[in-house]
């Protein structure tokens, strides 16, 4: 076994150990055992970082991949199914190594942060136990080498998110939120499982590698439509976990969990799992499935961004921002910008974790005030939080020199490239929504920064009744600050302790461009995009995109490619020849254009190659448009909130329907309430009626009938059977009474009878002699 595999097993199991220790012994350990969680996660991170270093930095090979697996359960030859063997295994490639380091780092920082944020909570130890099992589940997803084990860990993530979101389960809202998250995820998971079964039914294996190999060999026997369906069904798992439209509704409500949980779930682990999973199965997604994914992502990004601009709750803004950014990632995968999407996944994980932890610091300092309307002026009392929060906000908004700029830009370039390559006006909707959302992102983050950190403190503006409400919520948190909390809220705002500050600084530092790429304007020059490259599709595209933009150089290259190697439609075995042709074609047509240097490898699939070229060509337009959008967004935020040229309140009144539409989150909750929930209730009522009348009726009818039959049988028993028995007895009795008369008991009677018998015999005998 490779030593990295052994290390990765240790990485996987250490958080589970933390969970086991803490869930059973947290009450017996000093400090409720928080040092166990932090210590184990620190060790885990160190090991993960070693793996990261060995794989990404030392090996520095895009094709690096080691696999180890073993037979977990062997059912033998199952009737009706065939040989059924379930294997478990671990795969380590560049993506895994990066994800391992990212997940464990953020988990470790969240553990560290929680020692400050959660201190004084009555279930302090249990919180760390839950964080442990959460990290374990996520690492399982990252390391899995097959669909079966990823599904197991997928459900474990669902369970642990349920536990963490409902951590304050005394609050009804938290209990509701945890149920909502669990149910919404379940909807997606059912689709995912069906997708897994479609693939399993064809190949009788769960392993990614085996499935891809079989697909590349063209062994899928059900037709392209089914493969598209399998891809979309698998994507449904991502829709649930990564909170994509239309299952996004759980994520904002999940803010009921403690803030460190939000940072862990909504930045690094759970929501990343969906995107990671789509990346793992990326090569089997057909062009049609990718289109669906791209549109879902674009709609999610845009919808969530429009909702985020009107929310008051600091965490809710971040939650919708998360949904929006996840939409970007899914969009990126859908348009084929694979490495860009994963790049965004990692950069977003760091800056969004920092944003959540920063908002947690603010909430902590404000004594559990979450409403931005009553904040303000926190810049001076909380300089560290302010600095880190601002930095990562710029990263989220996508300003140059930040990590977010590079990754978001790469996705948007991919989107433009995709639209160019597909050549349809309809497809321009995707980059359009992407850019518009980028502007909205800049706007709502500018709004948030301004409302929270600048201006004067507005704590005293809070209406009394809402204050009481806040107080009640606070009381249920169990921090037990007592009744003097009003006064503290207005005066006692102070910077948080070092154990909450250090994670902020580390995460903010990881949001600077230099970590990822030497060139702040081009992420493709960085190590990440070089190490995580778009894999060759195994399904191929049957036909080249219909139309080509004559102005763009790259589509022309794709066109030449299409003519040169029509046979290369699928199959990666035709590598050498087509690549040579493709390179030539590319060099010829691209000429002296800025994008002449090739960042990655060439694809044998023409559609992929096409999009890759087009995306490359769109690099500068994307940078320019997105920068303009970001500047526009931030300026708009300044105009509205800093200079107050446009009064936000009056604007809200002026465009009241739109404002309410956004403020009420596009009424999704209401729509689901009116359709699915009311519908379920109505169906339940019908079924209840059916149960009460038809099923119970049948049961009661059977009961009544049995009773009747019982009476009939009883009568038969009583009169016929008993009658026969009694008649027999009567007959015997009567016969006895008659025969009894013969038994006189007198010896002489018997002698007489004997005599008569002898005489009778003689008479008979002589009669016979005579005749």
């Amino acid at each position, binding site marked *: 076994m490779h030593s990295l595999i052994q290390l990765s097993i240790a990485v996987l199991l250490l958080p589970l150990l933390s969970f086991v220790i803490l869930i059973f012994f947290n009450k017996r350990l000093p400090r409720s055992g928080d040092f166990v969680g932090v210590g184990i996660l620190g060790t885990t991170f160190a090991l993960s970082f070693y793996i990261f270093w060995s794989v990404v930095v030392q090996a520095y090979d895009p094709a690096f991949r080691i696999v180890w697996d073993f037979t977990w359960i062997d059912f033998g030859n199952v009737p009706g199914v065939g040989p059924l063997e379930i294997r478990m295994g671990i795969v380590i490639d560049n993506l895994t190594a990066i994800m391992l380091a990212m997940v464990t780092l953020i988990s470790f920082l969240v553990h560290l942060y929680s020692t400050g944020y959660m201190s004084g909570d009555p279930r302090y130890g249990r919180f760390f136990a839950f964080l442990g099992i959460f990290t374990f589940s996520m690492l399982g997803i990252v390391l899995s080498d097959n669909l079966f084990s990823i599904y197991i860990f997928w459900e474990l993530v669902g369970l642990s998110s349920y536990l963490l979101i409902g951590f304050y389960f005394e609050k009804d809202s938290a209990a509701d939120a945890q149920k909502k998250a669990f149910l919404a995820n379940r909807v997606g998971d059912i689709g995912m499982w069906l997708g897994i079964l479609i693939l399993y039914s064809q190949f009788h294996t769960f392993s990614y590698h085996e499935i891809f190999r079989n697909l590349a060999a063209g062994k899928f026997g059900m037709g392209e439509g089914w493969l598209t369906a399998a891809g979309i069904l698998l994507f449904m798992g991502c829709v649930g976990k990564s909170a994509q439209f239309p299952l996004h509704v759980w994520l904002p409500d999940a803010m009921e969990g403690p803030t460190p949980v939000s940072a862990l779930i909504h930045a690094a682990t759970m929501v990343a799992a969906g995107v990671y999973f789509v990346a793992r199965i990326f090569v089997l997604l057909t062009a049609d499935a990718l289109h669906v994914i791209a549109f879902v992502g674009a709609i999610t990004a845009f919808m969530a961004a429009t909702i985020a601009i009107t929310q008051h709750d600091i965490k809710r803004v971040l939650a919708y921002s998360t949904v929006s950014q996840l939409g970007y990632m899914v969009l990126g995968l859908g348009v084929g910008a694979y490495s860009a999407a994963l790049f965004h996944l990692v950069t977003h994980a760091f800056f969004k974790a920092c944003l959540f932890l920063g908002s947690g610091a603010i909430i902590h300092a404000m004594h559990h005030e979450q409403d931005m309307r009553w904040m303000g002026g926190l810049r001076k009392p909380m300089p560290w939080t302010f600095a880190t929060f601002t930095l990562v906000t710029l990263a989220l908004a996508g300003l140059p020199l930040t990590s977010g700029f590079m990754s978001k830009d790469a996705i948007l370039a991919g989107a433009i490239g995709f639209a160019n390559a597909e050549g349809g006006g309809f497809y321009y909707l995707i980059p359009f929504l992407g850019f518009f959302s980028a502007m909205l992102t800049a706007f709502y983050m500018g709004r948030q920064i301004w409302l929270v950190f600048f201006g004067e403190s507005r704590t005293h503006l809070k209406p009394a009744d809402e204050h009481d409400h806040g107080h009640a919520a606070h009381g249920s948190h169990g921090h037990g600050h007592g009744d003097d909390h009003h006064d503290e809220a207005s005066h006692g705002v102070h910077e948080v302790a070092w154990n909450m500050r250090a994670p902020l600084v580390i995460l903010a530092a990881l949001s600077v461009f230099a970590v990822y790429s030497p060139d702040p304007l081009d992420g493709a020059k960085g190590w990440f995009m070089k190490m995580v490259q778009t894999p060759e599709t195994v399904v191929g595209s049957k036909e080249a995109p219909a139309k080509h933009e004559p102005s763009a150089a790259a589509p022309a290259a794709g066109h030449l490619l299409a003519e040169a190697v029509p046979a290369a439609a699928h199959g990666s075995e035709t590598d050498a020849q087509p690549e040579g042709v493709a390179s030539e074609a590319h060099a010829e047509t691209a000429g002296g254009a800025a994008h002449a240097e090739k960042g990655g490898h060439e694809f044998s699939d023409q559609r992929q190659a096409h999009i890759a070229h087009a995306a490359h060509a769109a690099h500068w337009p994307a940078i320019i448009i997105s920068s303009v959008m970001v500047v526009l967004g931030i300026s708009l935020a300044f105009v509205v909130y800093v200079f107050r040229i446009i009064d936000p309140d009056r604007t809200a009144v002026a465009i009241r329907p739109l404002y309410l539409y956004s403020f009420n989150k596009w009424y999704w909750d209401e729509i689901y309430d009116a359709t699915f929930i009311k519908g379920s209730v109505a169906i339940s009522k019908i079924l209840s009626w059916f149960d009460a009348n038809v099923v119970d009726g049948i049961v009661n009818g059977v009961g009544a009938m049995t009773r009747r039959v019982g009476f009939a049988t009883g009568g038969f028993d009583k009169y016929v059977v008993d009658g026969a028995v009694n008649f027999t007895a009567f007959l015997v009795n009567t016969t006895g009474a008659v025969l*009894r008369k013969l*038994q*006189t*008991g*007198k*010896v*002489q009677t018997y*002698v*007489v009878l004997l*005599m008569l018998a002898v005489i009778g015999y003689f008479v008979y005998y002589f009669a016979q002699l005579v005749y």
Partner: protein
Amino acid sequence: MELLTNIGLNHYLTISALLFSFGLFAVMTRKNAIVILMGVELILNAANINFLAFSKFNGGMEGVMFSLFVIVLAAAEAAIALAIVINIYKIFRSVDVSTIDTMKE
């Protein structure tokens, strides 16, 4: 003597049948258990006469032997029967067989 020599088998058998009938009559009609026993003796002796008569006219000794057995048997029977009668008397204070009917029902 002629009379004696004219006595044939039928004469013996007639005597034997009469004796048997008397015995049987006694057994069937007398109430005293002792008298019944006497009737039984008559029946046995009627049988003896038959044995001896057939023996005499057939010329074999089997009939004589059988009648000797019967005499022995009758002696034993009388002993046992009288013992029974004594016991009956001890229990019922009577030897009247018409009153002894406790085996009824």
